[in-house]
């Protein structure tokens, strides 16, 4: 295995690499945000009018803690009734599994190619 001599990277090229990485990073966080795909919000499915602690499903002991925290049945209404929606489609689940497996397959494959080169240069070809 011939010894690989990497090219020396100039200042400008280094700077461009950093800028590319930063753009990709910021993009990964903010693009889902801008496209409005971010996060799972809780919603109140069935609002209750003239809420009381009983109607909100709270026992006297639980209601006492809410009152100690400074809540009234009205102000605690949304907090208590909001729920997540855990329904999902099998198609989306399969898509996610495929993406994750593809990702790990890709890295492990490329890593192995690069790793063999490292080992043969470091330890010499047998």
């Amino acid at each position, binding site marked *: 295995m011939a010894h690989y001599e990497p090219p020396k990277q100039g200042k400008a090229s280094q700077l461009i690499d950093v800028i590319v990485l930063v753009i990709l990073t910021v993009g990964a966080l903010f693009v889902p945000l801008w496209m409005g795909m971010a996060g799972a919000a809780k919603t109140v499915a069935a609002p209750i009018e003239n809420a009381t602690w009983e109607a909100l*499903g709270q*026992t006297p002991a*639980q209601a006492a803690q809410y009152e100690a925290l400074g809540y009234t049945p009205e102000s605690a209404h949304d*907090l208590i009734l909001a*729920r997540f929606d855990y329904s999902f489609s099998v198609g989306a689940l399969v898509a996610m599994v495929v993406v994750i497996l593809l990702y790990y397959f890709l890295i492990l494959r490329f890593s192995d190619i690069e790793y063999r080169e490292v080992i043969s240069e470091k330890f010499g070809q047998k």
Partner: protein
Amino acid sequence: MMTDTDITSPVMDGMGPHGTKVGLLRVLGPAHVWALGVGIVLVGEYMGWNFAVGKGGAYAALIACWFAGILYTCVAMIDSEVTSTVAAAGGQYTQAKHIVGPLMAFNVGLYLVFAYTMLEAANAITAGYLFFVVAQMSGHAGDLDQRPFIILVIMFLAWLNYRGVLATLTFNLVITAIAFVAILVLFVSTSGILGGGIMQHAALFEGHELPYGWIGVLAAMHFGLWYYLGIEGTTQAAEEVRSPARALPFGTLAGIMTLLIAATLTWYICSGVLPWEFLGDGVNGAVAPLFSTAQLAGSTGLVWLLGFGTLFATLASANGCINDASRAWFAMGRDKYLPGWFGAVHPKYRTPYRSIVFLVPIALIFALGAPLDQVITFSILSGLLEYTFMPLNIIMFRKKWPLNSIKRGYEHPFHPLPALTLLALCGITFFAVFLGYGTQLVAMIGFYIVVSLWFHFWRYRFVNRGTQFTMPWPKPQGY
């Protein structure tokens, strides 16, 4: 070689035979390792873990707490074994480079930097919010501008990191210890051990045992990670501890035990006082659940103690994150995985100063520009990808270098059981994240695929092939 070094000179003492003129300083002990690991994580008990309660109820959060505890015990055991053998700044990045391969290492390095930089941003946001609350409580007219406080937290801690690792982690040791003691004090003074107890678990859980059923327990795993996220960062200190083979396993395993205790106590205290709907809503309800519990305990002393505990926990965490992210970034620069300019060490302070300075504006962008849950999710996802890498890493490590081929500072028991457990728990957590943040998960993996291609086809040409393998190990089996 002899001409350009002078052992009495502080800047050119010629540490090591490889021509390092200025290297990182080896000054830390096991207590600092503990402070680095626990310091980063303990903020998770002061805020954030309670989202798990919202996801599935109080019992679900406890189950998630313990299963995540198992996950992290596996992480700590595996990590201790590998890192007691691969002792270099960069931690898991360097491990991946030697065991799996360069592209994996590049990805792991990015997981580390993102997980820590995002966590740092989340901490700064929380600290800013704390100042806001305190200002309101003290009767400040109008809304306090949180931005200067967020920026100050990041700037001050970056400056501390810039000036040297010993002072940085000694500071962490002190404030982490105070934050941990605050949890213990709150426990003994509210649980009935000292004076009257205010715990009423049975009454508060009545009718709300598992509000979402069992799928809520699965969903809670997402934020269950938050109880412990970051403990694996201890390995970043490898090049700066005096005896890594001993101090790293000791500090890491002591850290995970501390956290298991702190997490369970925190769950017990908070769920016994706060109703689950309030506790589980970290935005409109219990932003800082331990602090809210102290307020209900009716003692001004406890309120102050837990207030400072919360502030110290966020500072300790952000501090540790700056330390870890900059070490990983530095290590990648040193190997030319990133521009070599980042691989510089400050000749006087002996810190990776360029990496520290560079990551400041990145942290500021996220702290000032993105919502908290978003930042936390980004951090958790990067962490999760990293934990999925670890079982692959240890299985390959044991295969390529069996126990008798190289000496390890610590050997973890029951291999491959911990690796397989860890893999299974990661699978469950991926599903939990999918339930709430599926699109982000895919977007983020899309990002890692793009940068992986960029690295493989462009960036890797600047990397030395053979010399990046620096451990004095025999040739791996099977190559």
